[in-house]
C-alpha cells in the first residue's frame, strides 16, 4: 500500500506519530539536576564519535501572551542573532567550522535548540548555548528582516497549503479556550506586529536554567556531561520569578462542531475528525497507552480496522488513518481521517467511517491484531537503540510536557500491559461525536 499522500500525511506530522517509540534500556540513560534547577538527561551510545547536544525550554506557543501569537517561534529564530559575546550568525558559523550542524524547533509546549557535533566539541557547544540562554542582544533592524523570514515561512508552510489552512481552522474550532487552538507559527495579522519588546518579554520570562532541560546523546559518559554542564550552565542563576505553567483549560465539550473549508487548490477532498482526548499524565499513563494502541488498531496500516472495512471489504476510501498525540501538556486529540475514493462523496465517506467506528465499539479488538501490535512494541525497543537522536527527542518532549524520566522508561511496559478491554473502554470514552470536531476539506464549488 502506498503511504498516505503528502496532503493527508501533513495531518499526521503535527499530531506526532501514532506509536511513540519506546525508550532505550534504562541503564543507557542517566539523569540528574544541577543546583540551579537545570535538568540533565544523558543517553549513551558509543558506536560513533558523535554527540547530540540539546537544550529544551518548557515554553512554547501555548505559553504566549494573548495577542502575540508566534512569539515563541519568532524568538527561536532570533536566538541565532547577536549576544553579548557573539556576533549575529557566529553561533551557527562556529558549529559549522567544527564540522557540526545546528538548528532549533518550536511546538506548543516547548522550544528546543540542538547541535550535532564530534564528541570532543561538546564543551564549546555548551559554552555557546549557555551564553545565549541569558545574553541575547536584539537589534531592531535585524528583527524587521527576520520577521520577513517567518512570514515567508508561514507562506511556505501554511498559505501555500490548503491542508494546512484547513488544519489551522479546525484546531481553532477544536479548542475554545486553550492556546492549542492558535497556530504555533502565529496568526499572520499578529505576526506582522511582533517586535523586540514581545521577544524580550518572552525570553526573560522563560529562558532560564530552572526552565530548561539539557539532553546529551551519543559518545559521552554521564560524568563528562556533569562536569561540563556544571562549568557552563552551573553559573547561570535560576529565575526566581519563573511563573507556574497554568493555562486556561478546555471546558467540557457538549456540542458537536463541524466546519467546511473550501479552496480552489484542493484536488483530493477528505474528511478529518478530532476528538478531545486525555494526554499522558505522570504516573498515570494507562489511558493514554490504551489510546495509543487504539490508534494502531483503528487506523495504522493495511491490517487496521478502518483500512479493512473501507479499503478492502468496501472501496469507499483511498486512504484511512487514526492518530493520537499522547505526549502533550494539556488535553490532546484523537484523530481519524478518511480520503474517499473517486465518486464517493464526503457525506458518504463520513457515514461509512461512522459505521466502522460504531461496529468496532460493538465487536471490540481482534486478539491476533493486538498480539501483532504488542510484538511491534517489543521490537520497537530494539530498533530504537539504533537511533539515539530519536531517544533524545523523546525525553525532551516528555520532560517539557509534564512527564518524568521514570514515565518514559515505564511507557513500554504500560503499552505492553494494555488489554483488549482497555482499548475498548478507551474507544468508548473518546469516540463521542459530542466532543468532536468534524471538518471537510473541499474544492471550490463549480459555478457554470
Amino acid at each position, binding site marked *: *500500500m*502506498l503511504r498516505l*499522500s*503528502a*496532503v493527508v500525511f501533513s495531518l499526521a506530522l503535527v499530531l506526532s506519530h501514532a506509536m511513540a517509540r519506546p525508550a532505550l534500556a534504562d541503564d543507557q540513560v542517566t539523569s540528574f539536576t544541577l543546583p540551579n534547577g537545570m535538568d540533565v538527561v544523558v543517553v549513551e*551510545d558509543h*558506536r*560513533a*564519535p*558523535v554527540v547530540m547536544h540539546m537544550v529544551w525550554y518548557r515554553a512554547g506557543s501555548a505559553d504566549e501572551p494573548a495577542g502575540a501569537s508566534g512569539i515563541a517561534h519568532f524568538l*527561536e*529564530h532570533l536566538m*541565532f542573532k547577536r549576544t553579548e559575546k557573539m556576533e549575529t*550568525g557566529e553561533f*551557527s*558559523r562556529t558549529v*559549522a*567550522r*567544527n*564540522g557540526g550542524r545546528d*538548528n*532549533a*524547533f518550536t*511546538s506548543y509546549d516547548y522550544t528546543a535548540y540542538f547541535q550535532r557535533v*564530534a564528541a570532543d566539541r561538546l564543551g564549546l557547544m555548551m559554552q555557546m548555548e549557555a551564553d545565549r540562554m541569558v545574553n541575547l542582544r536584539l537589534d531592531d533592524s535585524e528583527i*524587521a*528582516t527576520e520577521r*520577513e*523570514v*517567518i*512570514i*515567508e*515561512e508561514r*507562506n*511556505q508552510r501554511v*498559505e*501555500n497549503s490548503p491542508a494546512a489552512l484547513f488544519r489551522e481552522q479546525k484546531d481553532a474550532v477544536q479548542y475554545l479556550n486553550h492556546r492549542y487552538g492558535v497556530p*504555533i507559527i502565529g496568526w499572520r495579522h499578529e505576526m506582522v506586529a511582533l517586535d523586540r519588546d514581545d521577544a524580550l518579554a518572552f525570553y526573560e520570562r522563560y529562558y532560564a536554567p530552572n526552565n530548561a532541560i539539557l539532553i546529551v546523546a*551519543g559518545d559521552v559518559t554521564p560524568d563528562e556531561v556533569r562536569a561540563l554542564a556544571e562549568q557552563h550552565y552551573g553559573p547561570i542563576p535560576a529565575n526566581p520569578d519563573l511563573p507556574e505553567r497554568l493555562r486556561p483549560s478546555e471546558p467540557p465539550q457538549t456540542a458537536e462542531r463541524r466546519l467546511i473549508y473550501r479552496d480552489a*487548490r484542493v*484536488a*483530493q477532498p477528505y474528511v478529518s475528525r478530532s476528538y478531545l482526548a486525555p494526554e499522558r499524565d505522570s504516573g498515570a499513563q494507562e489511558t493514554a497507552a490504551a489510546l495509543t494502541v487504539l490508534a494502531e488498531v483503528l487506523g495504522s*496500516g*493495511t*491490517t487496521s480496522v478502518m483500512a479493512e472495512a473501507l479499503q*478492502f471489504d468496501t*472501496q469507499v476510501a*483511498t*486512504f484511512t488513518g487514526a492518530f493520537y498525540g499522547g505526549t502533550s501538556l494539556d488535553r490532546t486529540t484523537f484523530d481519524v481521517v478518511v480520503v474517499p475514493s*473517486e465518486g464517493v462523496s464526503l457525506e458518504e465517506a463520513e457515514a461509512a467511517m461512522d459505521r466502522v467506528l460504531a461496529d468496532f465499539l460493538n465487536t471490540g479488538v481482534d486478539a491476533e491484531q493486538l498480539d*501483532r501490535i504488542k*510484538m*511491534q512494541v*517489543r521490537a*520497537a525497543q*530494539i*530498533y530504537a*537503540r*539504533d*537511533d539515539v537522536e530519536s531517544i533524545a527527542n523523546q525525553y525532551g518532549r516528555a520532560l517539557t510536557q509534564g512527564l518524568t524520566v521514570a514515565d518514559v522508561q515505564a511507557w513500554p511496559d504500560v503499552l505492553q500491559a494494555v488489554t483488549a478491554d482497555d482499548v475498548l473502554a478507551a474507544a468508548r470514552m473518546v469516540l463521542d461525536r459530542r466532543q468532536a470536531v468534524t471538518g471537510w476539506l473541499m474544492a471550490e464549488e463549480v459555478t457554470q
Partner: protein
Amino acid sequence: MMRFILPVMLALAALPARAAIEIKEVVSPGGITAWLVEDHAIPFTALEIRFRGGASVEAAQKRGATNLMTALLEEGAGEMDARAFARARDGLAASFRYSVSDDALSVSAQFLTENRDAAIDLLRQSLIAPRFDAEAIERVRGQVLSGLRSDEKNPQSIASRRFAALVYGDHPYGSSLDGTIDTVSALTRDDLVAAHAGALARDRIHVSAVGDITADQLGALLDSLLGDLPATGAALPGLADPVFPGGVEVVDFATPQSVVLFGQPGIGQEDPDFFAAFILDHILGGGGFESRLMTEVREKRGLTYGIYTYLADRELAQVWGGSVASANDRVAEAVEVIRAEWQRMQQDGVSQDDLDNAKTYLTGAYPLRFDGNGTIANIIVGMQMRGLPIDYAATRNDQVNAVTLEDVNRVARTLLDPARLSFVVVGQPEGLTESSN
C-alpha cells in the same frame, strides 16, 4: 516549526576516516555481491537492496508502470493476499519499504535476529512472487491517481514536472515516474508483470547489510532472497542531454507564494574536478545557514525561509540545481539576487578563508554520518551505486583537502554559467517577466 528544513538532498560521499567501522565484501555461493558491516550490538539487521535502472527502463507510453508495480510488491505474494502478507510482516515486527526513483528500485528492510529466516522468506516472496491481484491493482491505482490529481494543484509538484520537462525533454528524466492520469489509467496487469521482469533482475543488484549478521549468514541469505530472480532485465536508457535555455519560465498558478526551481549543467563524481565543484556548491548554496545564497536571500533581505543548491549526480545526467520560495510580490527580487550571486561567484570565485571553512566543515562532518545500522547501510549501498571503491572512506577527506583555491576558482569560472542558469517559477509573480536567452 524548525528554523529551517533541509530538503531531501543527494547524499554525496560517505565513509568516516576514523569511525570504527569496517566494510567487508561478501560474495554469496551463488555469486551475488554485498557489502557488510558486522555489528552485533543490537539484535537486528538493516538490509538495503538497489536495482539499477528503476523507472527509467519503462517505455514512455507505460509511464507509471514501475511505480505502480513497486507499490504492489507488498500487496500480496505467493499464497498470501495483501492482508495476509501485511499480517505476516507485522507479526514478525519486520519493516519492508519499497520505493522507486528514476535511477533505482530500492528495497529497505529491517528485521530482528530472532526471526530473520521467516522475515527473509516473506521478503523473498514479495520480490520473486508478487501476485498483482486485480483487487490490489485497482486499490493502489486509485491511490496513485489521487496523488496525481493532487500534484496538479501543488505548486511544488507543478514546478518539478515543468523543470524536468524543460531540462530533459523526451528522456525518461523529463517526465514524472508516477506517470500521468492517462498512462496510469491504461496500465494492465500484463504491463505490471512486464515492469517487474524489467526492473528486478540479477544483472543490476547492489546490496548492503549492517548489523547482527555474519558474512556466512549473509551469503546464504543473498542466494535465498535474490537467487531466483531472472538473470537479466530491461535495457537501461541512454544518457540524457540536459538543455538549459537560460531565462525564466513562469507557470501561472493562484497561490500566495511562488515556488522556484533553477539549474544549470552539473558535474559527475568521475570528473577530476568533482570535489572542487562540490566545495563550490557548499559555499554557494549547499551549506545551509552558512551559504552565500542563504546569507544574501534570507539573512540580509528576508526574502525566503530557505534557499538551497545541490549537485545532482544522477546515473544518466548531471545537473546543478536549486530551489527557493518567495511571496509573489518579492520573488522577482529573490531571482535577481540569485543571478547576481551566480555571476559574482563565477567572476570573483571564493577566498582562501571561504575554502578553508568549507573544508573544515565537510571533513569534520564526514565521520559523524555513520551513526546507526540503518544509516550506514544506506550510505554504503549508495557508494556501490556510484561505483566508488570499498576503501573510499580512507581517501574521501584527502580528496576534499587536496582541492586548492586555484582549482575551486578555475571550476567557478569554467563551470558556473549564469547565461544558462534557467528558472521555473510557479505562482503569480509580480514584476517577473518570462524571458529566454
